[in-house]
């Protein structure tokens, strides 16, 4: 029997144990590397030599160095991370909204509204007192400033979210490129050697996980060792070919927001979860939803308050008014006017009714009423803006007031002799005054455009507190105060107070629900990661133990080799 085969056996052992030790060392070195899967050297007994008397083993060969990984857990982790990232983005949005609205703090919109109505309430006790009147205008100013600020802040946040979208799309494209590159490399390397590219695969796995956090993907390994990545059936990476995403400006709104489409062909991105779709959801549904609610609140407040205000008079009669809102076409019936903006539900509409103008004769102190019918019954010729001006002029005596429409379609009503005649409106059943913005308190038609009429900012004398010029008449002020609790929103079912409260309630509930979901998601994610650790994580104690095994085996093999050396020495040198 030859000695040399035994040397081979010893040698194979030394090499194998070394590989084992290397693997252990690699594991220990990467114990804290995120996404690392522990590797194990798989040793097999070498093919035996067959003799007539039997088989003699030839030592150990290394079959492969494998990483211990469960692809199923990986895909579950990707899904959980995807949900968790969505939840985080939504949570950030709700947190930002709650911080903006700052309800329950005393610096919020409901307090500002309270103070505004409170100032009117205080006025009701001393209705002719000018400083108290001016105070009402100032509180109105504070209220509208807060509304404007809230709206602007939410608009800014939408822009931030939009920027997020752009950043996420860049990240996606970079990740797709890297995955494609890894596909190629792994394919080549594994093709040449046949051995698994453990570390590169780990890197590819972590890129896939990062991508899954951004949008939901399906990743399937192909026979050619590449991973095909798709999202909702649309390809993202096929071997080395990537399908990039791009953004384009959406025409859906007045402010610049982007939608995400595929570069190639412009197909829409259909994913619904992940930080990218969540950013778009936060931008277009969550934040926008509350902006729409704030708009509805503001528009209804403006319109209904103006409606009551326009039907009253302050301590002085008016001598000149100009409408704020103008229709595109002054010859269109008043209930079909296009005012240049889309009115929120239940606001800025005119219906069949009449307008009563009261003309005050300064010399005699007499006030006479004149009714102007506003014909919008859909039969015959309905009243247009031009028609309204003509009807006003026809209803009042000559030489008192004149109504006219200028080139920009503003309606002007002017006293022909301000020293002799003043006017006001004691009734408007059609809503035309509030729609056109005549004798109004608030200007604008939405949360962003809300303002206070210049006439009132100049002097509180024109705050319409009475139905007549009698100094003690506070009937209109009482009507304004009653507005707070009247159901004018949501198809006439909710008051301003209730609408606002249900908006905040909705914000609170949605936020609380999201927090709970996020917590659950995070818990699931941690559990899955622990499972992954269980399977693929490095346990230092385990590695230590294996290290001792390999070390002792190496020592024993080295000893064996020394013994063989003495045997050979005896054979060669002592004979």
């Amino acid at each position, binding site marked *: 029997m030859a000695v040399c085969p035994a040397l081979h056996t010893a040698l194979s052992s030394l090499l194998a144990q070394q590989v084992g030790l290397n693997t252990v060392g690699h594991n220990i070195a990467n*114990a804290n590397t995120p996404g690392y899967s522990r590797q194990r050297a798989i040793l097999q007994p070498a093919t035996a030599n067959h003799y007539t008397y039997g088989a003699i083993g030839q030592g150990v060969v290394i079959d492969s160095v494998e990483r211990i990984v469960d692809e199923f857990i990986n895909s579950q982790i990707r899904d959980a991370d995807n949900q968790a990232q969505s939840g985080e983005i939504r949570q950030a949005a*709700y947190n930002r909204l*709650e911080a903006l609205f700052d*309800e*329950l*703090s005393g610096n919020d919109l*409901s307090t500002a509204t*309270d103070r505004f109505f*409170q100032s009117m*309430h205080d006025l*009701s*006790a*001393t209705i*002719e007192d000018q400083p108290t009147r001016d105070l009402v205008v100032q509180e109105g100013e504070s209220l509208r400033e807060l509304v404007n600020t809230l709206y602007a802040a939410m608009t800014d946040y939408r822009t931030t979210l939009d920027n997020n979208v752009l950043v996420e799309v860049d990240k996606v494209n970079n990740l797709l490129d890297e995955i494609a590159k890894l596909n190629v490399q792994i394919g080549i390397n594994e093709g040449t050697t046949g051995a698994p590219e453990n570390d590169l695969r780990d890197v590819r796995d972590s890129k896939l996980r990062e991508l899954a956090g951004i949008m939901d993907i399906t990743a399937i390994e192909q026979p050619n060792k590449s991973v095909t990545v798709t999202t909702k059936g649309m390809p993202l990476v096929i071997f080395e070919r990537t399908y990039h995403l791009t953004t384009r400006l959406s025409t859906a709104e007045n402010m610049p927001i982007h939608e995400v489409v595929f570069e190639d062909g412009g197909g829409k991105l259909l994913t619904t979860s992940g930080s990218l779709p969540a950013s778009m959801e936060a931008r277009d549904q969550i934040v926008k939803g509350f902006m729409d609610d704030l708009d509805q609140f503001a528009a209804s407040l403006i319109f209904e308050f103006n409606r009551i205000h326009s039907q009253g008079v302050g301590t002085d009669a008016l001598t000149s008014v100009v409408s704020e809102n103008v229709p595109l076409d002054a010859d269109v019936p008043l209930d079909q006017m296009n005012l240049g903006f889309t009115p929120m539900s239940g606001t800025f509409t005119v*219906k*069949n*009714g*009449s307008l009563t103008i009261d003309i005050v004769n300064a010399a005699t*102190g*007499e006030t*006479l*009423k004149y009714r102007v*019918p506003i*014909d*919008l*019954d859909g*039969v*015959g010729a309905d009243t247009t803006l031009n028609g309204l001006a003509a009807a006003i002029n026809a209803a009042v005596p000559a030489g008192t007031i004149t109504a006219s429409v200028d080139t920009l379609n503003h309606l002007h009503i002017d006293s022909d002799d301000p020293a002799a005649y003043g006017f006001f409106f004691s009734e408007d*059943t059609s809503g035309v005054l509030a729609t056109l913005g005549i004798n109004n308190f608030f200007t604008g038609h939405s949360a962003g455009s809300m303002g206070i009429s210049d006439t009132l900012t100049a002097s509180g004398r024109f705050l319409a507190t009475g139905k*007549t010029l*009698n*100094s*003690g*008449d*506070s009937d209109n002020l*009482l009507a304004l*105060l*009653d507005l707070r609790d009247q159901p004018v929103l949501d198809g006439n079912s909710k008051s301003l*107070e209730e609408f606002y*409260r249900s908006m*905040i*309630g909705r*914000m*609170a*509930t949605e936020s*609380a629900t999201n927090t709970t979901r996020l917590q659950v998601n995070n818990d699931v994610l*941690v559990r899955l*990661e*622990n499972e992954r*650790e*269980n399977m693929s*994580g*490095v*346990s*230092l*104690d*385990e590695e*230590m*133990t294996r290290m*001792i095994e390999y070390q002792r085996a190496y020592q024993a093999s080295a000893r064996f080799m020394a013994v063989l050396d003495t045997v050979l020495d005896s054979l060669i040198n002592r004979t």
Partner: protein
Amino acid sequence: MRITEAILANNFLRDLGYNNTKMSRTQQQLASGTIISLPSQDPGIAGQVMDINDHLRRASEYMRNASVGTSFLSETDNILSNINSLIISARTLAVHASNGTINAAQRRGTAAEVQQILDEIVDSGNRRFRGRFIFAGFNMLETPFEITGDGVIYNGDAGRIGMRMSDNSKNFINITGREAFGAFDATVQGGVDLDPALDLAPDGTMLRDLNGGVGFTPGYLDVTYGAVPTTVRIDLSGAETLEDVATLIQAGTGGAVTVGVDGTGHALTLAGPGTVTVADVNGNTTARSLGILGSGAGGFTGMDIDPRITALTRVSSLLNGAFDTSGFTITNGSASVTITAADLGGTVQDLLGAINNSAANVHAEISADGRSLDISSRVNGATMTITENGGTTAADLGIASAGVRADNIFTTLIDLRDALMADDGPGIEATIAKFDTALDKILQSRSEAGARVQRFDYSSARHDDEHYNMTALLSEVNDVDYSKAVMDYQQLSNQMEAALRVAANVLPLSLADFL
């Protein structure tokens, strides 16, 4: 099960995070004193808090209003009490002076005292509260009472100042000169129902003035017409005037059925082909409120729908135009005004304006039931007569009067003074009973004021209770229970310490230390 270092570390960090979150929340509760600082921390509590705050706000407002009302009425009552004493003094003077043993010179001296009392009562009536005249109604910045040769003129009106003192009621906080002094007692109340004719012009009769002011029920009605009966449902919910109704019915039936006014001017007529029938839909009363529920071949006449008189009613439509237009003259003490045919050519407000803005110191208005005109003299002491101007206008309109004179404290004092100056014994005696009547009136107003103050107090007390209860409820709902919170915090703190200690002992263990 393999537990790697990473698992131990992750679990520890996660639990540490949870603990920290809970501790931070408890800290926030302790610092702020409330259970929630953001609505999302507990939407249920947030909703309740907002609702309670709303109730608190309302209760405060109502209490504030009640206190304003109470102080206004208390001041009113003080003044009335003052006036009460003055009237008693005057009565005493009258009793004394009616004695036959008093001579003319003494009576003249007493007359001066009576004048003094009159002046003082007028001054009291002109008292102000926080800069506004108390008895002037809405005319709060103009002196309500002034003395002239004819008597005491009242410049105020009947305006009632309202303030909301509970969810469903508006309470009035003033008493006008009319109520307290009978300042408008010299009134000619229109004795004829002026029943204005229906007006189908675009600025004519408004539907809300029909049926004596009850108005009309908006909704649908069915019109059937034609040789081959066709039924059309007409939507009148947007209609505001009779002209709207006529237009909509005519348009809805393609012009086949027309609407007009009958000869008496009191009812609508419908005319159309075949048998014209109007019916209500689903138990509504739209057609009935227009008086056109019915049917007839070729059309039919509806029922009297009795419109109110309004400022914009044309004078020519009163009594369906069946009255003389020569006009009338109102004489009030030394002043007068003549209403001519020209003044009767416009609307009711023109007629009222002509009367009210004249120098005659009269106040004309539409009566409360909307059927006629009331004309009152503002001058207490003068006799107002309404006489014809060559025709029968005043009688036709039911406002003719041979003379009315107020019978209140002002006129009684003036009569007493004049009787004293004229040494008129029976005249003086006649005034004594009248003082009793005036005292009754003052007493009535004082009781009214007192009753209202009582109501305000009651309402205020209720709201005070509500405020108290709501504040307690708010505390229950959202205030932190300090003992519980501090104990929770202590417990969490202990938990935290234990977790840290265990981690410190377990995490560093490694086989490497033993090899």
